[in-house]
């Protein structure tokens, strides 16, 4: 298999670039020093497109989302770079203008629907609050918009639910309410931060199907943040893998999950228990993520990487394009100068099969 895969056909309705994040850097100044939570992250999402941002705890994926929404507390936080959205740089917008964007053009749903909802307000009044902020309507119209929003996300008996409080709803129902609220102002971009992680598998299935169907119906672009490669595989078209504050691999879902070109991506896939691996030891990524105060000088994954050599210790690679600009990997093995070293990597079996 060569790296020069043809550019995959875009889904219908996916248009020009909606969100363009350029060299985003978010750090936190804390007592022990500075944590570079997001360190030079760049990606784009097209109108109607679906991107998954994937990584393990502490990799910076949620901070990336919060930075786009300008929900980082400063200080201790500090942001640099550009977040271009609708022809503006969100990072330089004044707070009133940002208020308009937040919840209006970009909406966000979070992992824990209970803590994101106000426990002392009814579901209806919370959705209506969002509607009033961004649309010129009267009370009756706002209530109707809220009722319709609940109906759209499959909440049974929406009229009655409007007057209920969050504690009267189940976890799956609360997440539907969050989605209804997020979509009530018809945003161009929906950011979903681990939207199903707190839910049971049959409820997760309902919410994933809901997000997909709404996304397809309304043409809202989706930025999905998750640690679950399974959720990624079936919800988005393109994926960016993050490690230690950086994007280490990008491409379409099929490219990245079937032919991972970064050792971290492949390590993650290989460590997932699955049918074929029963009776074999699971492959592991040795060690743990680096201490944020003592990041390696070179490649951030080098201390855990089974393929590392002097080059990886000495300097960190850029994202190297593999045939087309959107298919990249941050690994020296992809540099043509080190072509000869790829043999060991390429010889390893598929991460979906068991190996010793």
């Amino acid at each position, binding site marked *: 298999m060569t790296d020069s895969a043809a550019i995959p056909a875009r889904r219908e309705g996916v248009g020009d670039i909606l969100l363009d994040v350029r060299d985003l850097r978010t750090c936190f100044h804390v007592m022990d020093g500075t944590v570079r939570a997001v360190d030079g992250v760049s990606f784009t999402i097209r109108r109607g497109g679906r991107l998954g941002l994937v990584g393990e705890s502490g990799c910076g994926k949620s901070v990336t989302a919060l930075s786009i929404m300008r929900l980082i507390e400063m200080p201790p936080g500090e942001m640099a770079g550009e977040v271009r959205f609708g022809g503006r740089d969100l990072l330089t917008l004044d707070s009133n203008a940002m208020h308009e964007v937040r919840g209006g053009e970009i909406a966000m749903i979070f992992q824990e629907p209970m803590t994101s909802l106000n426990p002392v307000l009814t579901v209806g009044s919370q959705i209506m609050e969002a509607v009033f902020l961004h649309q010129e309507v009267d009370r009756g119209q706002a209530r109707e918009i809220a009722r319709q929003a609940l109906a759209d996300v499959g909440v049974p008996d929406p009229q009655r639910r409007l007057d209920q409080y969050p504690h009267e709803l189940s976890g799956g129902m609360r997440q539907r309410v969050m989605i209804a609220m997020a979509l009530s102002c018809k945003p161009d971009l929906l950011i979903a931060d681990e939207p199903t992680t707190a839910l049971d598998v*049959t409820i997760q299935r309902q919410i994933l199907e809901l997000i997909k169907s709404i996304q397809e119906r309304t043409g809202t672009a989706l930025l999905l943040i998750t640690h679950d490669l399974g959720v990624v595989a079936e919800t988005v078209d393109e994926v960016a893998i993050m490690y230690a504050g950086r994007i280490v691999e990008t491409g379409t879902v099929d490219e990245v999950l079937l032919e991972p070109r970064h050792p971290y991506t492949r390590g993650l896939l290989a460590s997932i228990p699955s049918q074929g691996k029963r009776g074999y030891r699971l492959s592991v990524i040795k060690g743990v993520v680096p201490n944020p105060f003592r990041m390696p000088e070179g490649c951030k994954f080098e201390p855990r990487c089974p393929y590392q050599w002097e080059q990886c210790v000495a300097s960190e690679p850029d994202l190297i394009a593999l045939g087309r600009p959107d298919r990249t990997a941050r690994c020296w093995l992809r540099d043509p100068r080190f072509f000869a070293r790829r043999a060991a990597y390429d010889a390893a079996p598929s991460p979906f099969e068991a190996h010793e």
Partner: protein
Amino acid sequence: MSALPAAAAPAASPRPLLEIENLKTYFPIQAGILRRTIGYVRAVDDVSFEIRRGEVFGLVGESGCGKTTLGRTVLRLEKATSGQALLDGRNLFSLSGAEMRQVRRRMQIIFQDPIGSLNPRMPVSDIIGEGLLAQADKENGWGDRKLRDDRVRDYLDVVGLRRDYARRYPHEFSGGQRQRIGIARALALAPEFVFADEPVSALDVSIQSQILNLLIDLREQFNLTYLFVAHNLSVVQYISDRVGVMYIGKLVELADVSDLYARPRHPYTIALLSAVPDPDPRVRKKRLVLHGDIPSPANPPSGCRFHTRCWFRERLGNPPRCAAEAPAFRDLGGGHLAACHYSEEITRDLVAQAVGLSTA
């Protein structure tokens, strides 16, 4: 390392290590100033099965299905409402306090939360040593500080941590290391039976695989029997020999792991397997999406508890039997049990489509 005594070798008797019979654990719901009991949450509702010596018995189900309560009841961390649990033929629920203390050494638990289950004010030597001290007697000599500390360090070694970590405190460790400490604490008493309650759910996937490998190694090294409770079906499939599926306090299916995943016979199991997102983009499933939420175990549906959400009942044209009559948990052959009136009518093709298996 070599000084460690292995747990008792498996006896030749075919008797299962643990037999759970008609177990019920109800929690009272109280209301008003007089705390009058107005009902019960039927967390575990008439469950019977056995765990064979040396096997990994996996128990899966969604939150609130009673899987954790079941394990905790067997260890007498919750009080059983009725039924019995026999360990080597002795009913654990009728043991006196002193007798139970003897038996506790043979049954240990690994908790889900590697942070909450370790006392932040204790060094690792005390966290692991506490159980040893509680179980100290003349024979094992664990009352002696020196001997106890040696044993703690031996077991740190066993779970892949450095011996000198005994002096450190929990906050100095990563999540995966903390879970190793929890495992060392359980194993230091040389148990035969370990109840692992969601032991990898709180861990990142790259750490999860390290802990799963460790649990498998330890089982071989110490002849352990596990009750492994998890909500992650792939993890349970990977580690278990036999698997039970619970729904609102009841076992709905039980079979050998390969049989259960290849030929599930209960509509709920099929829906669970169908719902799992697969990281392999080549896998194509015809997803079964269940309607509605999981009903409350305080007020479970009549008849078959799954009938309110059952996709198969719909296909059969909603036969009245499902809502009227609780299905028996019956053997469909080869020790494959399922609690569905219509298991025989679930075809292989139907399963294959929903679960994404090849029909071959």
